[in-house]
């Protein structure tokens, strides 16, 4: 974050709206030693936000239990007919879903659980070795961009720890049930989300030229501003750009299935999906390692506008 000060200037302006002064008249120079932190107005707002989050938390854990797809159908029973029809189509290929909390981090939490669950079930050691190498590369990317090690290393080690735990046969190995518990643990889950956010941000900045036009179309901001305002802070939602970057950086293909109201003129409804295939956007990184990408990605997410959940193929 060793950015020239001038670059911090535009970001400062985004703070508008969060602050206002109820006491605009400069008073005497008051002693502030006994200042009460709790009287912070912005602090109150942040407390209210966390109260709302806590309320939300009571409804849906970070990562929910596996549910049959019929629970989705039940949810839309009296809803939009296009959606009802699409859920039926979805049921031909997919058997279950796992809900995630809608706190702006749902893409990362879905990805975390889905990926680790896959490793736990497949015990694919070659894949573990491969991703560990990619993670090492991500670390170097961040260092190259000027990030200080201590700002990101704790988040990296929490993810590596989870990755090592799902590989069986060690003292620290965990069961599926424990994986679910850990994914619901605030500290572990948030640290892994932050790990993904660092990796995503590093990849976007490293390939700024590639991502720049997408970002300009999305938010009308520079790559740096975008990473600072929409990638790195917790709770900022993810879009195509984020998913592309994370998939590329970690070398993990991701399938996103879209459940929205769109339909085509021919009258026959289709469930659209998009496969994020690592390397397919960046010739310099070579698409060779993923040339056999016609296999189904093992991370499949369901996207409903504004929210990601985990989907399970039949």
């Amino acid at each position, binding site marked *: 974050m060793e950015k020239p000060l001038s670059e911090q200037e535009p970001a*400062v302006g*985004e*703070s*508008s709206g969060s*602050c206002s002064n109820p006491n605009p008249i400069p008073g005497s120079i008051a002693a502030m030693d006994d200042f009460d932190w709790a009287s912070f107005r912005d602090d109150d707002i942040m407390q209210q936000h966390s109260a709302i989050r806590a309320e939300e938390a009571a409804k849906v854990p970070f990562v929910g239990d596996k549910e049959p797809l019929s629970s989705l159908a039940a949810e839309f029973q009296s809803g939009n007919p296009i959606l009802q029809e699409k859920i039926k189509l979805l049921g031909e290929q997919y058997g279950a879903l796992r809900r995630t909390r809608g706190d702006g981090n749902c893409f990362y939490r879905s990805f975390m659980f889905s990926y680790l669950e896959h490793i736990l079930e497949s015990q694919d050691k070659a894949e573990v070795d491969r991703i560990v190498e990619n993670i090492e590369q991500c670390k170097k990317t961040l260092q190259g961009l000027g990030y200080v090690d201590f700002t990101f290393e704790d988040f990296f080690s929490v993810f590596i720890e989870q990755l090592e735990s799902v590989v069986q046969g060690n003292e620290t190995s965990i069961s599926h049930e424990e994986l679910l518990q850990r994914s619901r643990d605030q500290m572990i889950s*948030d640290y892994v989300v932050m790990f993904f956010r660092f990796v995503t941000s590093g990849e976007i900045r490293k390939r700024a030229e590639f991502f720049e036009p997408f970002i300009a179309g999305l938010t009308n901001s520079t790559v740096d501003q975008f990473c600072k305002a929409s990638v790195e802070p917790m709770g900022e939602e993810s879009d195509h750009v984020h998913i592309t970057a994370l998939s590329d950086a970690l070398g993990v293909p991701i399938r996103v299935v879209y459940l929205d109201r769109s339909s085509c003129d021919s009258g026959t409804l289709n469930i659209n999906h998009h496969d994020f295939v690592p390397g397919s956007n960046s010739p310099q990184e070579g698409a060779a390692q993923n040339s056999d990408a016609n296999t189904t990605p093992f991370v499949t997410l369901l996207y409903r506008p504004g929210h990601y959940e985990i989907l399970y193929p039949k």
Partner: protein
Amino acid sequence: MQASRARLFKEYKEVQREKAADPDIQLVCDDSNIFKWTALIKGPSETPYEGGVFQLAFAIPEQYPLLPPQVRFLTKIFHPNVHFKTGEICLDILKNAWSPAWTLQSVCRAIIALMAHPEPDSPLNCDSGNLLRSGDIRGYRSMARMYTRLAAMPKKG
């Protein structure tokens, strides 16, 4: 709690190592509490704060660095984005745009940048903001200068 302590300890070591690198910032950790820090920052040159030394107080939450530090000016300052009475600072990275990529040191740098580039459209100090918004740059500068002299510069004699 353990994680925030470990992170703050790393920041502490970094601050000791980099002391000379940023002469405008002097960050000090409370002797007995690693969650309390103070900083002395130099007012940026070519601003009404030039020549002043401003004290900041940091209160760091247990969830740091997932949550931002709470920072306020202890030294009185006349600036659109600083509450005149409480010293509260209106800066996005201390609120919704916070991320663990920031450090106590880089927060200080951001605050120095804010001193040089006030944002009168989101004022915590309306008088100061109104002066700037109405184009009375001279009025803003002289008020800010006066308070810098009164509160942020060593008394003579």
